[in-house]
């Protein structure tokens, strides 16, 4: 048993090495992500002020005390941006995880049980894919009211579809393999087959989807906040941009107020995308760019 665990750990370490060290995209993505993670963890020490407190006159241009200036009610923009990192991590990790869990359960059920369950789930997936998600997400967020958890809920409601579809397809193909038949012949129950034999096969896909889903979750949360649907008690980068837009920051020449939070959103989204791509290349070697024709 101990031998097996050591082997497994060695295998995981090797996979991580290939994805995050040998792959330049993975390495870059991980570096950016670790940078933001450090900011999020050390926010209390890094931020010069409380982002919810008025500490100076409003609309200050960048200065020594306020490297990014102050906003329309005299809050320090740099501190807002630093604390915003936490919100982005929170949304970027919870929403896709929730979505992946829903997608996994429905995809497994549809693929393994087949029949009416499959018809129903596949039908819902088909309709969900055809519904324009962003307008609907905006309307739902507007009706549910400004709360971070409501936004996460709405994101999960739309995020599960892609995962469910992939898990269903994978389950369908795994289910016909001889070792599943053997397990069934030995009297294994449906739930045991799903958990012990099919789940390990779809788990890598799930990880890839959670990571790729993080980018879109972060971007969508920021977008909703930009439109004024954000949670006022949880300042995110999108909300900083919302206030900059509403208070005409650019007209006043305060471009830092817009540039920095937006660049943070883009960089963090990019880091998740890069890691997702490195993962994808690991799973599908044909995509590796260093493999010349």
């Amino acid at each position, binding site marked *: 048993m101990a031998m097996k665990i050591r082997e497994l750990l060695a295998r995981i370490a090797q996979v991580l090495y290939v994805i995050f060290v040998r792959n330049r995209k993975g390495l870059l993505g991980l570096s950016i992500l670790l940078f933001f993670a450090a900011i999020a963890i050390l926010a209390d020490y890094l931020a010069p002020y409380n982002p919810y407190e008025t500490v100076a006159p409003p609309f200050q241009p960048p200065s020594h005390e306020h490297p990014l200036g102050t906003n329309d009610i005299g809050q320090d923009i740099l501190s807002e941006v630093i604390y915003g990192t936490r919100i982005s991590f929170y949304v970027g990790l919870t929403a896709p995880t929730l979505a992946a869990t829903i997608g996994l359960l429905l995809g497994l059920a549809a693929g393994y049980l087949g029949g009416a369950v499959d018809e129903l789930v596949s039908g819902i997936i088909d309709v969900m894919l055809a519904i*324009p998600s962003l307008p609907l997400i905006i309307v739902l967020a*507007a009706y549910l009211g400004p709360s971070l958890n409501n936004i996460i809920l709405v994101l999960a409601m739309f995020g599960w579809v892609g995962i469910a579809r992939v898990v269903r397809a994978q389950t369908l193909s795994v289910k016909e393999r001889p070792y599943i038949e053997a397990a069934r012949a030995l009297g294994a129950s449906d739930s045991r087959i799903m958990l012990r034999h099919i789940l390990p096969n779809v788990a890598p896909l799930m990880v890839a989807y959670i990571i790729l889903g993080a980018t879109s979750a972060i971007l969508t949360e920021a977008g909703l906040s930009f439109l004024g649907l954000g949670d006022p008690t949880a300042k995110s980068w999108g909300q900083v941009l919302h206030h900059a837009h509403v208070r005409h920051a650019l007209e006043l020449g305060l471009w830092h107020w817009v540039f920095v939070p937006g660049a943070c959103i*883009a960089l963090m989204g990019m880091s998740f995308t890069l890691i997702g791509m490195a993962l994808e290349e690991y799973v599908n070697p044909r995509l590796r760019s260093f493999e010349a024709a």
Partner: protein
Amino acid sequence: MPMSFLVKRSIRLVIVFFVILVLNFLLPRVMPGNPASILANEYQLPPETVKILEEMWKLNRSLPEQFVAYLESLFTGRWGYSYKYFPMPVYDLIMQRLPWTLLLLGTSSLTVFGLGVVLGIVAGWRRGTRTDSAITFTAVLVYAIPYYWLAMMLQYVFGYVLKTFPIGHAVTPGAIYTTPLDFVKDVLWHLTLPVLAITLTAYASYTLVTRNTMVDILGEDFILVAKAKGLPERRVMWHAARNALLPPVTMLAIRLGHIVGGAVFTETVFSYPGVGYLIYESIIYKDYPVLNAAFFMLAITVIIANFIADLTYMLLDPRIRYGKR
């Protein structure tokens, strides 16, 4: 046989349409208060007027009865009144804004698709080279850029600092045009930055998908045969590129929603008088009837465009055209 694909897609179109109809009906009804009472609060309407409005909108009837009334008013263009622009009918408001959004969406769909696919074909054809890395890396870089952020930066640089393009609106306010050409020029001049913002932030996913499909296809036997036959490079590339077009066309269907999203944000930044800007305004002013109608219009636009994309897909892929899968 070729009909089955069409029939399936048509059935889906109807179901999706129905789902959107029902959502559009239910959402305002789970909110506290009804349109009549909200208007009464906002504009100090006398109780008799509220009663008349409630009667007119059948707000005191049972849900099924309300649903029938809702369907009836939906198809006759009686979409209620804007809370903010009262007594402006929502229908008029939407119809004023819709042409601008369609112009923005149409133009940027073409530029996004064109730029994305061309870059993807080039990157895939030259896979493993520096060109490929440059195109792929740039695509990853812009993939995560928020539309509104790029729009704001473009607005700042080209609008406020260099003053080469207008900072907003669809036409110069108060302008009088001597010829129709002047009008067209003015519209295009105002359209440039919004379209540029959408294009630069939305093309990336097309590039990545087209590139990967190209790489996959270039590994297939028929490409080897084409090369072995001694076809010129260009012809071989065309063979591959033609087949690499399928996934991006499907994506156009799925991602059109994203371009619509891009339009909502870009219109907001540039105060471009389309449905997207209307959505932003209705969120800020809690103008729910307008929000609902704008959502409905955008959803319908996307669904119809999806359906057209499906038909195009059918024309491009002979396997579907002839009903063989």
